[in-house]
Structure formats: structure tokens, C-alpha cells
């Protein structure tokens, strides 16, 4: 099995609020720093993935947002237009107008249609790259959230089961080959050491293992709080916070000592309550866990992306 960044296609999912986009951007940054040419794909666009590189939003055409990182925003209409042009030789002059509208309408209601345009475009880029017609060493997708990602990735299977004939059906085969090949593809889950994200991760990993052919990669646990004390140091801490030492310190340092002690107790308790969820995850999921520490920083943007990338690099080794 190749290392995570040596595959060709990485999907990144996660529950809302856990830092999915930051981790996705960090993986792209890390791969680029290791000399790879990366296509970073934003799906379900909020249009802020490129903020993490301090670059303005991009469109359907890939733009280099950082050395080695090319970002694009996938939208279904542009994908449809490209598909029609490439596959059916249907001339698309200007707007697709009513066709796109009706298509959008059908795609909203019919299973897998919208998803296959997204997954299809992604797989297309991978196939073109593998066969030397596109320049990407690695395609990384900021995919749908945990609740919807399998529907997204299984779209080719859904379509194959629903559509009896036609070019879309015929194309599901090569997409499925790419999507189910563990040497090429991995689905990665970003989570946080909290109850809901951990439960959703465990659930998703189970569903992916039993009901999907997409290979799983790693689970990235974001925002892991540090353990402030060793057990021995905790005994010392308790002695410092208790009388008579507390008063001795207060006499030297001033009235703020209790605030520092309270803050430490909060930090320890927060860490401990999260460790429970981390342990639960570790026991329930048989995948590599990459731990990213909680970042005590004020700003966002490229600096944070780089810090997360460094943490991932340390966890991945090599």
C-alpha cells in the first residue's frame, strides 16, 4: 500500500465545524512541499478554501494558489458543459440555458446525477494524469460532509444500478475502477476529540467498510489539547495550589495566582474529557490516526495551514 500522499486521489470528509477544509488545504500544502503538483478541488463550495492560502476565490479553471497547489471550484453546470463538449460532441455555445435549468432540476431529485458530475470530473482528472495527459501527481478533494460523502462517492454505482443504457452508464465502469483501487484512492475523515464528531466518524467508517468500495485512508483528529502535566508533576501542581504554598506564591507574585491555578485546572479537565472520546475512537476504528494539536494562535490563513501541515508531516513520518 502506498503512503497516503503517494496515492493519486484523496477525498477528505468530516462533520461540520471540525476543520475539514483546513486539514484538506494542509494536506495539499504538504504534498506540494514534497514536490508534488496538486489539484485541490472544492466541492459544495463555500468558496473559502483558497482563503487558507490567502488567495482570492477561484472558479472552475484551476489556478495556482500556492507553489505547486492548483485550486478549482467544482460546480455542476460547468461540469455538465465540459461533459457535453468532451463526450457527446454537443456544441455548447454560450449559456446552456434551459438544458442546464432542467438538468439542475432533475439532478436535484434524481439520485446520483449531481454527484456523478462531481465525482466524474474528479476521476477524469485522475485518469488523465495517470495516463500522462494532465499534470497532477495528486488530486485532493474537499468532499461533502460525513452525512453525504458516501452518496457522493458511490454515485457511479447508484447510476449504474438506475440507468439501464446510455453513455453515462458506460462511463461508470472506469470511474469505479479508480474509486475502488486502494493504490490510487483513499477516503480520509477529519474529526475532533468530541462526542458527536467521534460518533459520526465511527459510523462513517463502518458504513464505508461494509457498504462502499471506496478504500479508507486515515482519520485526522484535529484540535487535540496538550496534556499539561505528567502524573508526577500533577502531584507537585496540587501541592503548589494548596496551602501553605499557595500563600507563599501569592506573597511573591500577587493576587493572580488563583486565576493561573484555575486556568490550569480547566485545561487539564478539558484535555481529560476529550481523551475519553479519543480513546473511544482509537478502539473503534482500525485506521491510522493522525493527531493535529489544538493551535493556540490568533490568526487564520496560510500560517495556520502551514502549522497543520507540519503536524501532519510529523504524524505521517517519512
Amino acid at each position, binding site marked *: 500500500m502506498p503512503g497516503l500522499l503517494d496515492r493519486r486521489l484523496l477525498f477528505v470528509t468530516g*462533520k*461540520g*465545524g*471540525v476543520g475539514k477544509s483546513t486539514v484538506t488545504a494542509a494536506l495539499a500544502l504538504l504534498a506540494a512541499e514534497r514536490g508534488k503538483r496538486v489539484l485541490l478541488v472544492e466541492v459544495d463550495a*463555500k468558496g*473559502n478554501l483558497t482563503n487558507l492560502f490567502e488567495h482570492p476565490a477561484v472558479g472552475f479553471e484551476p489556478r495556482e494558489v500556492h507553489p505547486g497547489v492548483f485550486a478549482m471550484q467544482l460546480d455542476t453546470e460547468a461540469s455538465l458543459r465540459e461533459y*457535453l463538449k468532451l463526450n*457527446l460532441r454537443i456544441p455548447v455555445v454560450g449559456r446552456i440555458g*434551459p*438544458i442546464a435549468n*432542467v438538468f439542475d*432540476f*432533475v439532478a*436535484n*431529485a*434524481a*439520485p446520483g446525477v449531481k454527484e456523478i458530475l462531481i465525482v466524474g470530473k474528479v476521476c477524469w482528472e485522475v485518469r488523465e494524469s495517470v495516463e500522462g495527459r494532465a499534470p497532477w501527481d495528486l488530486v485532493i478533494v474537499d468532499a461533502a*460532509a460525513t*452525512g453525504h460523502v458516501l452518496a457522493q462517492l458511490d454515485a457511479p454505482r447508484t447510476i449504474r444500478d*438506475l*440507468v*439501464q*443504457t*446510455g*453513455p*453515462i*452508464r458506460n462511463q461508470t465502469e472506469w470511474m469505479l475502477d479508480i474509486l475502488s483501487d486502494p493504490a490510487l484512492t483513499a477516503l480520509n475523515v477529519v474529526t*475532533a476529540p468530541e*462526542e*458527536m464528531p467521534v*460518533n459520526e466518524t465511527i459510523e462513517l467508517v463502518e458504513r464505508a467498510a461494509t457498504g462502499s468500495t471506496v478504500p479508507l485512508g486515515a482519520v485526522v483528529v484535529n484540535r487535540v489539547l496538550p496534556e*499539561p502535566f505528567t502524573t*508526577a*508533576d500533577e502531584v*507537585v*501542581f496540587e*501541592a*503548589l495550589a494548596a496551602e*501553605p*504554598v499557595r500563600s*507563599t*506564591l501569592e506573597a*511573591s*507574585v*500577587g*493576587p*493572580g495566582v488563583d*486565576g*493561573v491555578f*484555575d*486556568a*490550569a*485546572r*480547566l*485545561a487539564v479537565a*478539558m484535555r481529560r*474529557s476529550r481523551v475519553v472520546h479519543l480513546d473511544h475512537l482509537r478502539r473503534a476504528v482500525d485506521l491510522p490516526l493522525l493527531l493535529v494539536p489544538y493551535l*493556540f*494562535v*490568533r490568526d487564520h490563513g496560510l500560517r495556520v495551514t502551514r502549522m497543520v501541515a507540519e503536524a501532519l508531516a510529523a504524524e505521517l513520518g517519512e
Partner: protein
Amino acid sequence: MSTVPATSLEALLASREVLVFCGSGGVGKTSTAAATALAAAVHLGGRVLVLTIDPAKRLADALGLEGFGNDARRVPDDVLRRAGLTPRGELWAAMLDTKASWDDLVQRHAPDPATAERILSNRLYDNLTSRFVQSHDYIAMERLYDLHATGAYDLIVVDTPPSRNALDFLDAPQRMADFFGGRLLRWLTVPYRIGGGRGARLVNFASKPFYQVADRILGTQFLQDIAEFFLNFESMYDGFVTRARAVEHLMHDPRTAFTVVTTLEGAPWREAEFFVRELRERRFHLGALVLNRVLPDAFRDPAVAAAADRFVDDADALAAVVAASDPSAASADPAAVARVLRTLGASYRNFAVVATREAELRNRLARAPDVVVTVPTFAEDVHDLGGLARIGTYLLGGVDPVTG
């Protein structure tokens, strides 16, 4: 009916019938909504219902929701008393079961049982109800309307589904109406009508360029399935549109207020700002803003910061003083004491950076709603009634109902 701006969350709870909680994923929206309902039932009385969308399992257990599907259940008084609470009113809880709610809706709006059956058994139906973008949003609002229309509750507190765009649910009724009333839908089902109505074969499918293209992409059978499904679904049009309008009306009613929940982190905060702005522009009633999981004030106290600095800068000297003062104790090893003092100071400084960031975001809030409440970060997860009551204390700004 009161439309006077409420100046506290308590006043809001006392004067409104529906309180809609919104905010981006992972900010503690569900717990805050449940805590608000609990606080209202305990302190203000009346019949209070919390409609939750996707509660954590332990929270659902605490509310007695496990396995109860779509029905509202009363949280028994003895359960509340065991948590140290003396309720003046009744707390009810319901969880949204999307599938069951959709089935109900189809049964209600279909012109006859046979059409309902055809819709429910169509293989596209499950997909529409479970995956159509606005489906969860719409059904949540629809359920809310239903529960409100029963008149059985004095106050309904509703959690909103985790949407990609936190505002999607506001548009859901309109989109549903558009969806069923749309010319596109009629156009799509045209070959059926020409072919002689429901269930006919597609006689002149090939005559229009659109169908030629669609047929080449998707295949004839698939298009037929879709058209047949929509033709059946269309029979429910009037019922749907009427309801969608009524739901929209309720959302704008002065008896309904919105509460935006956010943490003081970049992304959720930006979404909350957007939310506050949009709610105002669209003339919904913004009742309150809840700042959740905020670090305690101690992290911004200059005296505490000064102490933390001394712990780091003068660790060795302080350790010598401590060791000399009590040579027999655990604090007798100067090296260990100095190490712990540095750790304490550094840990404080770390959190202080975050607290400063939080304060900056809070100060940036322009045009805040009249009620802004802050709930501090708790060390432990909130997963029982005691924890919800603790949140409620901060929401209402009163005394702790358990510890006094």
C-alpha cells in the same frame, strides 16, 4: 401579542411562541436549544416543547427520546427532580424523523390512497426525501408548523438542521412551492401528457431537442421513471403550496423569534455575522445571540496574566522560595517546582491568546441584537439534564438551579 423587543432571554421566552435556533455546525446549537427549553419549563412554567433534529445519543437519552421517532414525549417530572430541578411547567421533547414526516405529508396531500401508494413506492421517492437538498430543511419547518398548529404548547424551541448554508431552511418553503409549481416540472412531464396522461409511453419524446440530449445522457428508462414520479407528485401541488405558504407565514410571525448560536471562532463567527445580517434584511425577528463555549474572563485578567508571566520568567527563584518554605512536602524539589510553574504560565498564556482572539471577535460585532448572552466553555461535555440546567443558568443570567 407582544412585539416589543425583549431585553433578556427570559423576556423573550415569556413573550414568544416559537424560538428558532440557528448557527453553523458544531457550535452547540442542539444543547443550547434544549437548555433554553428546559430553563423555560423550569423557571417560567407552561408547556414547553423542544424539537431537536439530530441530538447526540447521550443527550437524546437524557431527554428520553431514544427510539421514539416522530412523537413528542414529555420528560417525566421525576426525571427532572432527580436532576435537582423543580419544574413549574412541563418539558416535552421531540426528535425529527425525516422519513416518517415525509410519509405523513404524502398521505395527507395525495388525492387518493392509490396515488399516495404509487409515490411512496417509487424508487426516486426515498432519494428525493433523503437527499434533495432542501428536504430536511423543509420537513423541519413543516413539522414545526404542525406542532405549533396543534396549540398544545406555550413555547416551541426548535433546533435547525445542519445545512451547508445555514440559511437554507428559511428558503425551504418557498423552494418547495417553486419546485412543485415550476414550469420546469411541467416541461419535464410534457411527453407524458401528450402521450395520453399518467403512465403512458413516451410517444414523442424524440421530437424535442432537450429530450434528445437528455435521452442520450441518461437513457430513456431513467427519464420515464423521473417523469412518472413527478407526474404523481404534482397531484399534491395545491396542498404543498398552501402549506409552504403557511409555514413561511409562521416564520415571519411576530410570535416567532430567531436565536443565533455561535462560538467565538473565525468560521462559525463569520457565518453568525452573515446570519444576523440576513435575518434583519429579510425581516425575520432576531431575538438573541448566544456566544457559546467562551473562555472564562480569568484569561483576560491583567493580574492573572502578570502572575503567569512571573511563573514563567522567575520560575527558578520562585521554586527556591517555595522549596525553602516547606522542605518536607511534594513541593520540596526546586527543579520540579520550576518546571511546573513554567508549564502553568505557558498553559495560561496559550489560552490567553485564544481568549484575546475571542474578545476581538466579540468587539467586532456590529448591530448586535438586543439580547446577547455568553455561555462559558465547560470542562466536561454536556450530556445530561444537570449540564443543560447549567447552560440555562447562563442563558437566563440567574442563579444555578441545582447548586443555588
